[in-house]
């Protein structure tokens, strides 16, 4: 701000001293951070390279040629991951919203729906995702009703079922965090229950739980890797195949790098979005 610059010329001696002191403190802490980082990395490198098996581990986990060589297959697998992730994401948002709204609606008429939603959430949250994948992945084809089903679809169903329950719980806490006066205000205008939910409650609810939602999203993205167990050649499975071909574990590291890189932008996006909305709706003065 311009006013600060003009004011800076006539500050008191006390303030000048305070500023130089704070500046010194900053330099000091940066220096300490840098030194401790160097020391820490040095110790790790020393321990690793000094250990007996390091040469072997390096050759079998961090082999550059194998790394690069495995990338095309892993990239192909990544497409499957993104496919399952994309489908499930859309479906999860729809189902989770329905479940959350059902669980927070206090109409007697909807009691059976509410009970069903609660049972579903309890059941799914208690079950390991891997088991659910097995049950869906091998159970549905076993019925023999639909003929051969693409495992990508089965994986999508399982992941959707699993994460709908988690995301519904997050959304439910978001809905409960919206102050009842907002609902009263909306209903007083003549909005119906569903209009109130859609226009007034849900937008505020989602905003309140964006960090938690993103957390679930990143977890979901990793759990998509589980579809490898029911026959989808995704990143994990592709890495496994490469490992089997090359007798080298580096493709696993490559797969790990791919997962981390995939997660990063979403984590950053969540931070950016939360900050932006906070700035937009609140006057300064955050402590």
């Amino acid at each position, binding site marked *: 701000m311009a006013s600060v610059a003009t004011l800076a010329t006539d500050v008191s001696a006390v303030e000048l001293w305070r500023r130089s002191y704070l500046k010194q403190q900053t330099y000091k802490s940066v220096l300490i951070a840098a030194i401790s980082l160097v020391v820490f990395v040095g110790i790790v490198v020393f321990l690793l390279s000094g250990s007996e098996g390091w040469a072997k581990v390096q050759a079998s986990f961090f082999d550059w040629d194998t790394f690069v060589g495995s990338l095309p297959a892993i990239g192909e697998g990544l497409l499957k991951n993104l496919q399952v992730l994309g489908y499930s994401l859309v479906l999860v948002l729809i189902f989770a919203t329905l479940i959350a709204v059902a669980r927070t609606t206090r109409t007697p008429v909807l009691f059976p729906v509410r009970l069903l939603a609660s049972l579903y959430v309890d059941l799914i949250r208690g079950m390991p995702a891997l088991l659910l994948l097995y049950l869906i992945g091998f159970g549905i084809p076993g019925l023999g009703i639909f003929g051969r089903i693409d495992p990508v679809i089965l994986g999508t169903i399982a992941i959707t079922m699993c994460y709908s329950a988690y995301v519904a719980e997050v959304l439910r806490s978001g809905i409960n965090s919206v102050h009842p*006066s*907002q609902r*009263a*205000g*909306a*209903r*007083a*205008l*003549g*909005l*119906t229950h569903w*209009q109130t939910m859609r*226009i*007034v409650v849900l*937008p*505020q609810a989602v*905003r309140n739980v964006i960090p938690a939602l993103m957390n679930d999203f990143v977890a979901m993205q990793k759990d998509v890797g589980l579809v490898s167990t029911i026959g989808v050649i995704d990143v994990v499975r592709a890495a496994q195949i490469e490992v089997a071909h090359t007798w080298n574990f580096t493709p696993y590291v490559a797969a790990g790098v791919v997962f981390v890189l995939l997660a990063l932008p979403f984590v950053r996006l969540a931070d950016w979005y939360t900050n932006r909305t906070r700035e*937009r*709706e*609140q*006057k300064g003065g955050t402590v």
Partner: protein
Amino acid sequence: MSGPVLSLRNIRKDFGEHRVLDGIDLDVKEHEVVVLIGASGSGKSTLLRCVNLLERIDDGQIFLQGEDISDPRVDKDKARARIGVVFQSFNLFPHLSVLRNVTLALTDVHHIPKEEAEARAMTLLERIGVASKAHVYPDRLSGGQQQRVAIVRAIAANPELLLLDEITSALDPNLVGEVLDLVLDLKRGGSTIVMATHEMDFARQAADTIVYLNHGRIEEAGTPEKLFNNPDSEQTAAFLSRYRK
């Protein structure tokens, strides 16, 4: 001469064992301003919430223009759409712009085309001097501005009845005046208003009828002159004497 806009017959409301409203009978004529006064907990706010069907009454009937809106077969949303309400804490929607706050009910409840709704909203916002803030979010407005936006939001659809629930209680003292001026403006415009307030000077100035509520009953109702100068009930006199200068 048509009948009263609002008729309350023997309204009763219990919160658990506690009887908040104990047989309220009240008629509000067209263009009449009825001011509810009484100590905190006397049932003023509850009565307003009951009239707007935000609370379910435990006995009695509520007639809006002669129609029993406490009948369970009545579409509550439609009934609420005919009544404007302003709350103590404004209850503006923080995620919607000031303009959208005002147009929301017009477009989504009354199905007025967007352009027309926005034109009407802008006229109202100009009237209360916040037209330049139409596209910002409510948090950028002062408390008095927010409450005035809440008032025009409530009157945008020309409700048959306006309920004001202690609309100045959450405001800084220096912002109370601008909100009450707007209410006087509405009175001059012919709005039918039922309001609960602790502002006795304002009650005296604006009310056609003052209703003194005491423990969920109407202790006394009458013109401001009558209640302030020559009340029938000793309790009314005792309550008002605490406010007399």
